[in-house]
């Protein structure tokens, strides 16, 4: 088995966040791969709901992850209005994945800015916008954020709050009337950050193999707190990597 890529490590760590029987809402790409990988490894009855409206997608063991297999293996396809209102808003999603749009910002309280960098009317960079991120962040039982760890995107405070993580501290979600625990962890290509239970500020709790703590701090735009005992992410096993690579075999079209 060849050496795992950073993307594969992120996917595997994200998969480990999925628990059996959870209803997971995933976008295309890495979150979808993570949820389907979890079903193959340790969470066979996790219910995977795609942002396309495909509900309870049960890929077969040798199925690659493509638009076509997702559509074919879905129990049903919901109109998006139904998915958003009667599933997401109603609290039927246990775990929502949030990705990092290219250029997006993430801050020390795990708020996401994927609308603009700078001022809304005169942005220094225009980003893709919200999609359903604001609602996934606000209404899921908990969220996992998967994003590349770069100094440019890891900022003290996002310029524009597209999706609320922990606001400005531990009480904010309750004050805003948001559901659920909010971001439970942030998985990057360097390590894992989790909110401090007292302050809700992100703390580095794990680094991936070959990454050291100083490297992570150097790519973080605030004074990143570090857990007393930072664990090293276990190396992916051959079983995990093989399962992941059947989802993305060479030559198949990936969902993106």
């Amino acid at each position, binding site marked *: 088995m060849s050496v795992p890529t950073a993307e594969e490590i992120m996917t595997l760590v994200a998969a480990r966040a999925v628990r059996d029987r959870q209803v997971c809402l995933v976008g*295309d790409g890495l979150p979808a791969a993570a949820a389907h990988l979890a079903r193959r490894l340790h969470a066979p009855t996790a219910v995977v709901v*795609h942002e*396309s*409206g*495909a509900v309870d997608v049960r890929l077969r063991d040798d199925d690659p992850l493509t*638009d*076509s297999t997702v*559509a074919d293996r879905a129990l*049903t*396809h919901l*109109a*998006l*209005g139904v998915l*958003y*209102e009667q599933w*997401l*808003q109603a609290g039927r999603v246990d775990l929502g994945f949030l990705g990092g*749009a*290219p*250029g997006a910002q993430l801050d020390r309280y795990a708020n996401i800015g994927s*609308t603009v960098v700078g001022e*809304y*009317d005169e942005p220094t960079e*225009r*980003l*893709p*916008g*919200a*999609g*359903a*991120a*604001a*609602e996934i*962040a*606000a*209404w899921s039982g908990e969220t996992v954020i998967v994003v590349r760890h770069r100094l440019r995107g890891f900022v003290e405070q996002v310029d*524009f*709050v*597209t*999706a*609320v993580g922990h*606001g400005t501290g531990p009480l904010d979600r309750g004050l*805003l*009337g*948001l*559901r659920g625990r909010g971001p439970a962890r942030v998985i990057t290509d360097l390590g894992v950050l989790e909110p401090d239970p007292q302050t809700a500020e992100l703390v580095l709790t794990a680094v991936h193999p070959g990454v050291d703590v100083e490297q992570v701090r150097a790519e973080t735009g605030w004074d990143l707190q570090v857990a007393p005992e930072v664990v090293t992410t276990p190396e992916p096993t051959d079983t995990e990597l093989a399962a992941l690579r059947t989802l993305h075999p060479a030559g198949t*079209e990936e969902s*993106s």
Partner: protein
Amino acid sequence: MHAVSVRTVPKIVDLTTAVGELVHDGATVALEGVDQLVPYAAAHEIVRLRRRRLTLVRTASDQLTDQLVGAGCVDTLVFSHIAGPDGRPPARFLDALGHDWPAALRIEEHTHPAMAARYAAGAARVPFAVLRDTGTDLPQHTPTVATVRCPFTGSAVTAVAALVPDVTVVHAQRADRRGNVELRGPVGLQSDAVHAARASIVTVEEIVDDLEPAPGAVVVPGSVVTAVVAAPGGAAPSRVHGFYERDDAALQEWADVSADRDRLGTWLDALGGTS
């Protein structure tokens, strides 16, 4: 609110007739289809017919939006996400937004669930929809979002204005000769967008004598469809479940065209849309 008008029998017409009669300069035109069933053929007809000053509603905006903006058809874009194949906003959109080229572009920005709720309210002919708050900064910049009090409990909720397009354009797998339409696979928010609009155009892969909808398919009855157009391949390069897959090479090719004003001109000439 405008009442739902009495409908005539849907007409099976060609694309030029449908777009020519139903998409007018200055109109609010929704072209929907999230990643799949994207109505490219109809969009290109709008470019060819040189429609101008449109308010384009496209929730998950993409290269279709980029083409209409680049061609100078759009004056206001209503959307909740915009990205090309690399996940970033595409170049024609950025050029219009940042440099007023080929013309200034106004934006009205929402979230996907807010757009779906706006269509549902429009379809129901009520003035607004309500959603739970999310704490996003968007309401500070978007006048069609407001916080209101629930009249029964006093709790704060988000209100979004109903959306009633002059015409909604979607692509589907098939229709029968009476204009009943079948959409399969991921169905997006097309049915709500059609029901919300004053008129609708549905382009289809094929027209059949009798519709036999697959289990789980969404059927849009002909009574809410104004015009049906046979347009095989009309959603390419996006995906049509049961017919064809997404064409990544073609999408990348457009990204290259989009990156360059001169190449855009060549593309428009080839499409027959320059004025």
